[in-house]
């Protein structure tokens, strides 16, 4: 069976590429520290020596629209083009291209459906920065085949938070039951407190540093119970109107396992939002 080489949860910040490559007067004062932290974070994936990446993210109204909105969707395609015109325009993200690990997609869909998740699928998926940002930060050579998994964190009504946790647990089990000798890293990106298009956007910190501190603690300690006790679909509006992206962190807590402390934790307090990076090495993953 396949090996889970690493479980990684991260914020996805679309401005990283531009900030990290800017020079002279255009280079923001926080860029060097950010690059140093990302370089260390990248090493946690490199060390796990993965063959395949399962990438959990959320389409930002690119290919997926309100006339046809899946809650959870698995890409099943031999290839994936990536990034969209408005992401080039606003963030300077390049067009990207990935090979798909289609047999793992098939396995996740078949056995996921049989396990009680009515997963949607896509045979032609152009993925967006929720998936390409971690590729840029963690695997810039973009040389590994992927299985993208999209969740709806964006367009109410959303599934309950516990459902994201359960899906993360299921993805972990599905990877572990994949009849293959490949080493798989499960990587998911979301947000801590975040405000987009509202009065608290683009402040000197994230909109709710208190929530961020608690959230980092929950994730670092694998404290699913406390996160589920304190987080609801209604409560997530309070730290910032785009904070439902935290549900993807909860999914990754499910993938990492209840009560399992992260082996690597780092944060960076930026304007607008706090960055947070977590890596777990499962006991059999030989990632360290």
């Amino acid at each position, binding site marked *: 069976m396949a090996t889970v080489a690493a479980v990684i949860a991260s914020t996805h910040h679309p401005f990283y590429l531009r900030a990290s490559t800017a020079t002279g007067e255009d280079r923001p004062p926080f860029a060097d520290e950010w690059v140093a932290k990302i370089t260390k974070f990248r090493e946690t994936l490199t060390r796990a020596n993965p063959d395949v990446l399962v990438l959990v993210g959320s389409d*930002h109204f690119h290919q997926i629209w*309100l006339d046809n909105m899946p809650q959870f969707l698995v890409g099943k395609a031999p290839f994936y083009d990536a990034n969209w015109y*408005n992401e080039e325009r606003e963030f300077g993200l390049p067009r990207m291209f990935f090979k798909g690990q289609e047999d793992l997609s098939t396995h996740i869909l078949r056995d996921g459906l049989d396990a009680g998740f009515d997963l949607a699928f896509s045979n032609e998926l152009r993925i967006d920065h929720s998936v390409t940002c971690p590729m840029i930060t963690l695997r810039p050579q973009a040389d590994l085949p992927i299985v993208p998994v999209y969740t709806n964190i964006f367009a*109410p009504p959303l599934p309950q938070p516990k459902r994201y946790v359960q899906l993360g647990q299921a993805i972990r089990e599905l990877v572990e039951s994949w009849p293959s000798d490949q080493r798989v890293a499960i990587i998911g990106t979301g947000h801590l407190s975040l405000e987009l*298009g*509202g*009065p608290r*956007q683009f402040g000197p910190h994230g909109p709710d540093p208190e929530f961020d501190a608690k959230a980092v603690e929950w994730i670092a300690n694998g404290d699913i119970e406390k996160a589920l006790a304190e987080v609801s679909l209604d409560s997530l509006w309070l730290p910032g109107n785009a904070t439902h992206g935290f549900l993807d962190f909860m999914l990754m807590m499910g993938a990492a396992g209840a009560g399992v402390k992260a082996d690597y934790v780092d944060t960076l307090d930026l304007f607008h939002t706090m960055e947070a990076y977590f890596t777990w090495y499962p006991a059999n993953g030989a990632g360290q």
Partner: protein
Amino acid sequence: MSKYLLDKFLYTVDRDPELVERYRAQPRETVTWWENERANAILNVHDGECSTWLRFDDAEREALATHDYPKLFELGAHPFLTLTLFIAMFERDYAEPLGFQLEYAQRLSHFTMPYPDIAT
């Protein structure tokens, strides 16, 4: 009241470079054209099989025609869509980095939690 249609306008304009410029330069003309020609188009479906029932109410049409993004927020347009499109149109007019984004936040500062419902 059609939050969905507001979102559909923002979404379809934002993904089309020509429409972004047209909406910036001629907002009322673009909204009128879009409502007449595009509001009932089902995405990925040919024009012979359009919807027949989608139209803006007066407040929605006026908010779009006047680039009134605080009003769009009040009407429950999806804030991510509004922000993304309006950055594309107006960030260029501000000398300071984040100048437009911070003014945007300031112009919404009278809103307190809970914000207007964005569910469609």
